[in-house]
């Protein structure tokens, strides 16, 4: 419990800055949306005429910015990236922070098992990730009040926030596993960040293929498709897949962390 409380305290400052970023993205995106939506039908039709590869590179594949839901989905694509990068940071920090700060000798000589300590750290990070998703929902609801758009979007916002949480969870557990698997903490952090970048690149490839098929399994950024979320569904299959992946990554992380050499490298 001491550990958990301490972890919440040390994580608060980065969390504050990441929330500020999320706030800026959502507010700027939603408050200024009317201008971009005014000729949205025209733009959507126009984009449809361009070759797939150009549309994918512009990040405008499978979107319809003629209505608010579709426009919000575009903003959320970038929020997903924010979630992924933050989650990768949380995962590698939970595993490697004591090594980087050279405080591991102090902490790991306490009468607690390594798994207990890691569990406390990961739990605190999950709390941050969850509050981050709650903030996403909150900011969206506050921002949409600033503009003149009819309808209740709470459900839409909640589905997107939930999707963002699951995407974050996958990257969080993955980077925790990678951080536990490398002896040098910087290598682990690098692998986690490269995974985010590679997944984003795969998401662009997914967009530019006519029949991507199984590629969807490889990139968490496409587990929850805009079109599905906008049309009132939440893809439970991929929510289960995310949870399963997270469970697998966490088990490997614990397994490796119990057995690894601790050091300041």
């Amino acid at each position, binding site marked *: 419990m001491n550990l958990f409380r301490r972890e919440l305290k040390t994580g608060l400052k980065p969390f504050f800055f990441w929330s500020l*970023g999320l706030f800026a*993205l959502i507010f*700027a*995106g939603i408050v*200024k*949306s009317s*201008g*971009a939506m005014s*000729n949205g039908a*025209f733009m959507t*039709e*126009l984009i449809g*005429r*361009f*070759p797939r*590869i*150009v549309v994918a*590179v*512009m*990040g405008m594949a499978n979107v319809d910015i003629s209505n608010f839901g579709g426009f919000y989905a*575009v*903003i959320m694509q*970038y929020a997903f*990236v*924010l979630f992924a*990068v933050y989650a*990768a*940071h949380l995962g*590698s*920090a939970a595993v*490697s*922070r004591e090594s*980087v*700060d*050279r405080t591991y000798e102090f902490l790991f000589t306490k009468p607690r098992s390594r798994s207990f300590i890691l569990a406390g750290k990961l739990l605190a990070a999950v709390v941050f990730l969850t509050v981050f998703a709650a903030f996403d929902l909150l900011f969206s609801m506050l921002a949409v009040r600033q503009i003149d758009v009819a309808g209740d979007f709470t459900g839409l916002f909640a589905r997107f926030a939930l999707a963002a949480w699951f995407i974050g969870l996958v990257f969080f557990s993955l980077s925790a596993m990678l951080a536990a698997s490398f002896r040098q*903490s*910087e290598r682990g*952090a*690098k692998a*986690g*960040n*490269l995974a*985010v*970048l590679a997944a984003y690149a795969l998401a662009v490839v997914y967009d530019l293929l006519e029949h991507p098929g199984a590629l969807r399994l490889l990139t968490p950024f496409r587990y929850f498709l805009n079109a599905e979320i906008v049309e009132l569904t939440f893809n439970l299959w991929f929510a289960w897949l995310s949870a399963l992946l997270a469970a697998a990554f966490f088990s490997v992380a614990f397994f490796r962390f119990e057995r690894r050499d601790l050091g300041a490298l």
Partner: protein
Amino acid sequence: MNVFRFELRRAWTSATVWTLVILGLMAGLIAGALPVFLDSRANVEAMLSNFPPEFAAAFGLELDHIFSFGGFYSFGFLYYSLFGAIMTAVIGLDLFSREKREKCTDFLMSKPRSRDGLFLAKLLAALTLILLSNVLFIAESLALYRAYAPVPDAPARALLASSALLFTELVFLAIAVFAAVFARKVRSVSGAATAIGFGGFILSALQSILEEEKLRYVTPFKYFDPSKAFFEGSFDTPYVITAVLLTLGLLIAAYIRYTRSDVPAL
């Protein structure tokens, strides 16, 4: 000279990998998609004729710009900038936080070298890597321009447009150096670099969607617009001034801090 050589030796591998990624991406995009893209013009024109004439008039003028080598080049530029920004942020953060991370600042500072000299040697090493990377990028851009542009008659403009990446990267170098020198602790170079790179990427995307002019002043990816360079032979002056002031301001602040700050015992 020792510091310069040491830093180059430590940092060149990752810079090389990033450069190869950028070069490969650009070659793939232009060789693979530019011909298809140019062919799709008829399709877009057909659609425009179904819309009210004022739409077509407003947009039709831009068709010549969009469906050209320069138009296509600037679509991909978002990604070259993303990778370039991450590469530069890695270089800047890595070089300038090395002693802080490895807790050996006192070791370096007690050598008979002035702090100015150390700062300049590190900066020079970073600039060397970035310049070399961009020489390759510009050379490849010009070669692709000659090979794939329908009418490659303005190589000077292509040169200016492809140097946009270098200028953008210099802004990011200043940001990274500033962050490395002012941060109390740099726990992970790649984590901070990814955050900086994707931060620029998200801002740029947001600015493109919203088309808000004021937002462009805080969007480094948009300070140097390659499509503008292609079609008018220049960048937008107000943003160039912003970029220069930002870069110099951050570097000078970092320089002052680096040469005057106290060195912690551990």
